[in-house]
């Protein structure tokens, strides 16, 4: 098994890492009868297993299949916390992308699939930071698009418009939850990080009601490409091959979830996810130099592109909700911020007389995530985890004023710019010689700061300011997507208003998802002890 170049396990300190080796049980299907032909298992120098028959006069050797573990096995198993980083990932690899593209019949053929590539802004930032000179994200996107076109991709998008829709839906969901105000409604926890979602499903089922049902930008991009654009192109979902480039391995797991599988057309909203590192590998394998300019034809994109969402480089979820609350408040609100530790920032909105009306937090990394789980469990009065707590003294719930209303949870320290699938410093051995500090921890932090800078610098904004008002034309496109996908009976559609029941049903299908507790199904023979 070979990991893609971007990943070495030692880089994963404080990421959510597998708790133990994969325990996917290996079950015997046909028990041999006593007295069956004796065979031996031999292992060659390459580590392959061979079964050697010893009984027949001419010994035969048969290569044995290695057990393969699919991403769906990982999703259904609670053996690891999140397994993506430790498990054979063959279904979603850059080799798989090349294989699909090369076997794609001509576009005239009915079985031709339109190849579409969608790349995340964090991936663009990582690529940009790896270049010797500061390069705007737009330029990086143009070059990636040129490279993708050379492979056969017909459309290349970035995922910021999908994120725009995710943010709108996120705000709508927050308003719904706040209005309901029942148990399990608040705090609302971000849902864009699949590492966090997987971890919660496997070890903290009590957190699931709090996790936003809104799909992640990747999955909304899937809906946009396969449902909305597909219809415009006159293509069914299964006639499109949709590849995303993400900063994170766990996005592969996310795309594999059964919720994002289209039964009718036997296809997924996102067919294949590759990481930034895998894209980089692909470019280098094909001899494509990202440093060199490309001829840009600046084609008219059907989607708004490279939208900025100020606040955080992990999607600006909290920031967008803060903006929404400030803008819809009848009184002017003051924002105070408190950052007790690295990767933890608490933001509070207060009325002029100092009463807090909203408490939010940005919380990244496994360590801070633990505290969020503890705190949410306490404030909501739910039993955290599964341990023996029979004698635990019941404690009074925190007052509403003390609890979080929203938490932007991300599993990686530093957030998505520092995702496990991003490029590692320096870009490669033969090329750039950057003078990163010698010690590992600082190197990673310094590198993450570089990527963070690349993420924002494009727009000449040193620090993210308060979110600007969204442009009118953008609003028009967003509303049109909602209207055309959900088909409400009413003429006028708004993201922050309920539609008729049937349209809302479609909205749930296109923009929301669900979570479920994953129970361990450990078979005795497979248990690690």
């Amino acid at each position: 098994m070979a990991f893609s170049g971007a990943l070495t396990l030692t880089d994963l300190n404080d990421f959510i890492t597998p708790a133990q080796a994969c325990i996917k049980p290996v079950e015997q299907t046909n028990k041999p009868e006593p007295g069956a032909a004796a065979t031996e298992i031999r292992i060659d120098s390459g580590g392959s297993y061979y079964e050697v028959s010893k009984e027949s006069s001419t010994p035969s050797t048969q290569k044995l299949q290695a057990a393969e573990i699919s991403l769906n096995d990982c999703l259904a198993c609670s053996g690891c916390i999140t397994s993506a980083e430790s498990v054979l990932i063959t279904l979603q690899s850059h080799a798989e992308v090349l294989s699909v593209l090369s076997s794609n019949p001509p576009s005239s053929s009915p079985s031709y699939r339109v190849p579409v590539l969608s790349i995340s802004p964090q991936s663009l930032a990582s690529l940009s930071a790896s270049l010797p000179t500061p390069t705007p994200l737009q330029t990086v996107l143009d070059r990636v698009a040129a490279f993708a076109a050379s492979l056969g991709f017909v459309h290349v998008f970035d995922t910021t418009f999908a994120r725009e829709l995710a943010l709108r839906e996120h705000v709508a969901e927050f308003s719904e939850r706040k209005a309901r105000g029942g148990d399990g409604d608040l705090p609302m926890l971000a849902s864009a990080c699949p590492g966090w979602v997987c971890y919660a499903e496997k070890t903290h089922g009590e957190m699931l009601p709090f996790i936003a049902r809104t799909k992640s930008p990747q999955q909304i991009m899937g809906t946009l490409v396969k449902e909305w654009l597909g219809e415009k192109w006159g293509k069914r979902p299964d006639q499109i091959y949709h590849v995303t480039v993400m900063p994170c391995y766990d996005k592969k797991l996310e795309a594999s979830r059964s919720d994002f599988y289209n039964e009718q057309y036997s296809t997924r909203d996102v067919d294949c996810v590759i990481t930034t590192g895998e894209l980089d590998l692909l470019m280098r394998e094909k001899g494509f130099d990202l440093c060199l300019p490309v001829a840009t034809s600046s084609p008219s994109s059907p989607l708004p592109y490279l939208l900025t969402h100020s606040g955080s480089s992990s999607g600006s979820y909290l920031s967008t909700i803060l903006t929404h609350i400030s803008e819809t408040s009848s009184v002017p609100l003051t924002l105070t911020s408190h950052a007790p530790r690295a990767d933890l920032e608490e933001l509070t909105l207060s009325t002029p007389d100092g009463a807090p009306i909203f408490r939010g937090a940005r919380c990244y990394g496994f360590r801070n995530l633990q505290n969020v789980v503890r705190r949410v469990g306490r404030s909501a009065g739910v039993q955290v985890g599964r341990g023996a707590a029979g004698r635990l003294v019941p404690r009074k719930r925190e007052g509403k004023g003390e609890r979080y209303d929203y938490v932007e949870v991300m599993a990686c320290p530093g957030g998505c710019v520092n995702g496990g699938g991003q490029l590692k410093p320096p870009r490669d051995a033969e090329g750039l010689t950057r003078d990163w500090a010698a010690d590992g921890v600082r190197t990673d932090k310094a590198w993450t700061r570089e990527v963070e800078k690349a993420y924002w610098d494009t727009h000449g904004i040193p620090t993210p300011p308060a979110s600007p008002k969204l442009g009118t034309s953008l609003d028009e496109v967003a509303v049109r997507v909602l209207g055309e996908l959900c088909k409400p009976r009413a003429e006028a559609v708004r993201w922050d208003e309920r539609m008729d029941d049937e349209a809302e049903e479609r909205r749930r299908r296109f923009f929301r998802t669900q979570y479920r507790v994953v129970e361990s199904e450990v078979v005795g023979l497979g248990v690690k002890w």
Partner: protein
Amino acid sequence: MDYNPNPIIVNPGTTWTRRKTQKERHSLWLSEEGDDSIDADDNEVELIDGDEVFDLIRSISDPEHRSMTLEQLAVVSAPQITVSNQKNHVMVEFTPTVPHCGMSTVIGLSIRVRLLRSLPNRFKVDIKVKPGSHTSEHAVNKQLNDKERVAAALENNAITEVLETCLESAGRRGRPADI
């Protein structure tokens, strides 16, 4: 994937080395008929030998091939057992059926549990795979002789279920199943 789909089977020995004089004892752990423990008398230290230890473990079932015993698969044999009554020490060496056998720790654990339940307390037991017989020899040995890991494993229902199945046949002590 099978670790070893077609193991080599040996003829079990026909001599039963089981001792005749043993008092009945009902273990909390086992509900088979007859004795299973080598019990020291109240004040007299009873000496045991490798054959007796072999008797205790020969009929443990293989976790992968439940119809066969460790003896039948040549995983355990009397010569691979060393007993020192003076030092109160028992060393059991076993031979995994294939060098990459993933069941080795379970086999070793079943031997350990059997001896834990049957041998007098005074014996310290070491269990090892035969040198050179396993690709992860060191790791397997280390785990089997870490009493904390063993103790925790025995509190894991998934593992004890497997172990109990393997140990069900242990009381046969070399006799065929139909007796």
